């Protein structure tokens, strides 16, 4: 019997080593240690043994069973590991293949510029005022100190609809209407929008373009406030190390009027093709609101003052992104639009 037991043990150990997967291993377990297995049979047959032999044989059978069980467990660990390896192998992929595209479009570069400027001014307490593209001559010109027949009207060639209505040439009518509506109250607005000039479309002209104007009216608004505000704008749009300078200019609705240059962001001021070797780039027009404009809107120009500025979104976008032809903004070529996808900074 002892002989038989040893042989069984050898057989079981050989088979469990031969098992190549967990299922086969389980078959071995059932075959040798199961309720109908030979070891169980041997235990059942112990009754036939003498009382002296029983404990000895019992111990022996148990030892064999424990040994086989331990070997089974060890083998199971190996086979499990092997099974996982096989699974991993099977599930391996070529990670260099492209991922499933997630559709995503983006804003037009002009909107990107407009929103960036809006956000800056909103953070400084401004609200956003919008108006209509078709305007009355009065709000586009007369209320802005540009009476009919004024030579400065030539600065802005206009699409008229009737003698009294036109496509706005700037977003300033929004300023005029806001002042009229505010009836003497302080104002802080930014007004973006589409504007129109009688120009033939070419690389640098567009009959329709996007303007962003700002207006602040209140007691003790100073030219230094204008300068400080424009400095914030320049730094936001073109980087913190930008310097600004003001040059005298002329707009009928502001006095004094200025143009603002920024130090060239490409060469830093030493001169390059972007700044036409001057070190400075013209960015926008601005000024202190002309007393006539304030008075026409019902403000007392002796008590209240204000400043205004106007920016061309195309100009900013062209400089910022190096776009060389203004028509790109209106042809809507996907190869152009899709370039304004990512974040910066």
């Amino acid at each position, binding site marked *: 019997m002892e002989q038989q037991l040893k042989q069984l043990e050898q057989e079981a150990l050989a088979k469990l080593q031969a098992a190549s997967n967990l299922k086969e291993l389980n078959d071995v377990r059932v075959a040798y240690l199961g309720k109908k297995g030979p070891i169980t049979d041997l235990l059942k047959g112990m009754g036939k043994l003498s009382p002296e032999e029983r404990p000895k044989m019992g111990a022996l059978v148990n030892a064999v069973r424990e040994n086989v069980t331990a070997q089974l467990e060890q083998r199971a660990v190996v086979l499990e590991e092997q099974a996982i390896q096989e699974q991993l192998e099977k599930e391996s992929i070529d990670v260099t*293949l492209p991922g*499933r*595209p997630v*559709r*995503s*479009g*983006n804003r*037009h570069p*002009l*909107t990107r510029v407009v*929103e960036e400027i809006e956000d800056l*001014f909103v953070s400084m*307490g*401004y*609200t*956003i005022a919008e108006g*209509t*593209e*078709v305007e*009355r001559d009065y709000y586009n010109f007369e209320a802005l100190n540009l009476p009919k*027949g004024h030579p*400065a009207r030539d*600065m802005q060639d206009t*699409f*008229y*609809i*009737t003698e009294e*209505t036109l496509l706005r040439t700037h977003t300033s009518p929004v300023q005029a209407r806001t002042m009229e509506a505010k009836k003497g109250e*302080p104002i802080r607005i930014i007004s973006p929008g*589409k504007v*129109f000039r009688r120009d*033939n479309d070419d690389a640098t002209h567009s*009959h329709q373009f996007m303007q962003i104007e700002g207006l602040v009216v*209140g007691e*003790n*608004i*100073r*030219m*230094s*406030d204008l*300068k*400080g*505000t424009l*400095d914030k704008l320049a730094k936001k749009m073109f980087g913190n190390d930008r310097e600004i*300078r*003001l040059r*005298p*200019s002329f707009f009928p609705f502001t*006095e*004094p*009027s200025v*143009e603002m240059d920024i130090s060239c962001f490409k060469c830093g001021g030493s001169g390059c093709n972007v700044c036409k070797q001057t070190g400075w780039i013209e960015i926008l027009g601005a000024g*202190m609101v*002309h*007393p006539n404009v304030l008075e026409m809107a019902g403000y007392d120009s002796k008590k209240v*003052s204000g400043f205004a500025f106007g920016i061309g979104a195309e100009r900013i976008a062209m400089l910022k992104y190096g776009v060389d032809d203004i028509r790109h*903004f209106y042809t*809507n070529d*996907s*190869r152009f639009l899709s370039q304004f996808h990512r974040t910066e900074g």
Partner: protein
Amino acid sequence: MLVSLNWLKQYVDIEGIAAEELAEKITRSGIEVDAVIDRSQGMTNVVVGYVVSKEKHPDADKLNICQVEVGEGDVRQIICGAPNVAAGQKVIVALPGARLPGGVKIKKAKMRGQESNGMICSLQELGVEGRVVPKAYADGIYVLPEDAVPGSDALELVGLRDIVLELGLTPNRSDALSMLGVAYEVAAILSKEVKLPEIQYESISEKAEDYINVRVEAKENPLYAAKVVKNVKIAESPLWLQHYLMAAGVRPHNNVVDITNYILMEYGQPLHAFDYESLNSKEIVVRLATEGEKIVTLDEQERTLNAHNLVITNGVEPVAVAGVMGGANSEVTNETTTVVIEAAYFEGISVRRTSKELGLRSDSSARFEKGVDPNRVLLASERAAQMLAEIAGGEVLEGTVLVDDLDKTPARVVVSPDYINSRLGMKISLEEMLSILNRLQFDVEAANGLLIIDVPTRRQDIKIEEDIIEEIARLFGYDEIPMTLPEGNEQVGGLTPYQAKRRIVRNVLEGAGLYQAITYSLTSDELAQKFALKAEDTTKLLMPMSEERSTLRQSLIPHLVEAASYNVARKADSVSLYEIGSVFLGQTEEQLPYEEEHIAFVLTGKWVDHTWQGEKLNVDFFVAKGIIESLFEKLGLTDRLSFTKTTVDGLHPGQTAAIFLDGEKIGLIGGLHPTERKQYDLKETYVAELNLKAILAATVEDLVYAPVPRFPAMTRDIALELDRSKPAGEIVEIIRQAGTKLLKEVKVFDVYEGEKMEAGKKSVAFSLTYFDPERTLTDDEVVNAHNKVLKVLTEAGAELR
């Protein structure tokens, strides 16, 4: 305005200042210098030559062999093709080694076998613009005066050793449309004096008033002065005068015309010279034209006048369009001996209107339009008399025939230094302010804490305190202004709900893969109402630049379809664009169109394109509809949105729906009609347009959290056989109506038409979800609720499958 520095030096000391530096100073303090032009353009080896002899080239018809003396005893052979070259002329010679504008290098050469040691030059070859070269030399070489010395620097002689500043003048600075005006500006910047021209001449005893009488019959002409000069000898002007004019961009003609142009540039006061004989009258009458009256102007064009055009007449017919251009009938010619010089003040608005109507802008009209200096009119006429005497050998008749009703008093501006500083945010001292005003040569007095300023009439742009603030600030320097931010703001910045929601709308569409387009508001009449949600009266331009951009659009779709077509033509295999923009409908009380902001999109080509895993999906109606549904879901409007089949011109009749919000039509969606697709060369293309204004105006309840369900939901499916044309949406609506409060959701999960179905029929399967937030539903409860739905469906004639 082109400012020759050689000329400017006559009035203000600019010695020792480099042109670039001067330009920078002028730009920084008020007038933008657009360009600094070195007229010599780096030319070298250009000298005066004397043509000793000229023979025909033996082997070339058009060439001449000239022997040219280019220095004491230095005679060289030069081949010249100019028609006007002749022996005995003094000419401009570019010697071998010379560099001319445009990268031209002069070398010894052989021309048809004959040696040529240089080039005899035209002015154009020296970089002078053809349009300002005197007509006599326009098609050939330039001939110098006889006293020119061979071998000397020719550039100096023809005024090309000069630098010209090109000023970009804003409309307010018409004072700088004259050399004197620029001199005042430069003097103020540099703290220098202005040297005015000295006017001195002798008159003869004959009286101007015996030759001519002046009558003014129009208020647009408050001042008219006439001087008479006889025995003038018409000739070329002296070189210096011609060169100053050319530097200023004016073509020299003859001494009389050149003198008027010179004074126009010097004083900014336009003058006109009439040939006295051809005036054919002893009187000048200034009046408004009669309607349809005609005049042939100096440019030989016949002009038809309007009744409000101001004209100068000889009492019978017009001899000049006042302030714009003279008439050919009274032009100064080579035979002229007696001239009448007109110096007048014409109202700017009148000149501007006339010049615009006639499409005729001149140096003269440009100055009158902006208002000339009332105190320079008579000065200019005296200056003309002097120069005609000195240069044209004329005899000036005694006196000026004058009609003068012009106010010449300077504008007075009173301003306090404190006001100036408070508006600037600076602290400029009173002394500094006085110093600046003195440099500007403004008449200023400080009294009782106020500055009392009489502004010279040459500065027509200065009328109010703010104008003085600008003068002081710009000359003090804008760099000195500190940087501050506005104080005392109580307003909180932010977007309006509309603006904030509009940004979210952009995010939804971009998240769905659409790119924002911006197209033009102006379109053609033909496209203006195409695809319009509601076509109303259109708004058209009075004078469009082209038919293509003549009318304001009522739909965004046409331009988006054009953009899609543009992209497809450039090999884009799919296009997805959206636009937010206004459409222009009818008219408001303000006579403006009603502007409504819309959102539209266009989709064509592939929607999903993931090739290596074999996933491809072309856009279809439901892709487009899904975008709209997700937009409405984001806006919390899903339950208020519905679609109804409709037809729209240009869209596929079987693939078009009207979109409703709360039962009101606010949009459309559809496939582009095959004929449209053909026209634009597009494959299946889907478009939609929605009234964004209406959508964003719809308010929704505040968002409140609903408890996360603790009990399971139960689903039951229903499959129905329906007519192919029966909208599934109607069945969903019937199910919703029939469901008890336990019915939470109805979904279409399968649609089948095909072999297994009878022709004209389809099978549609719905999934119904039953749910009670308070407890787990029993089977019986669900069965009861579901049976009610089935009963209603059966009663409605639906066939259960």
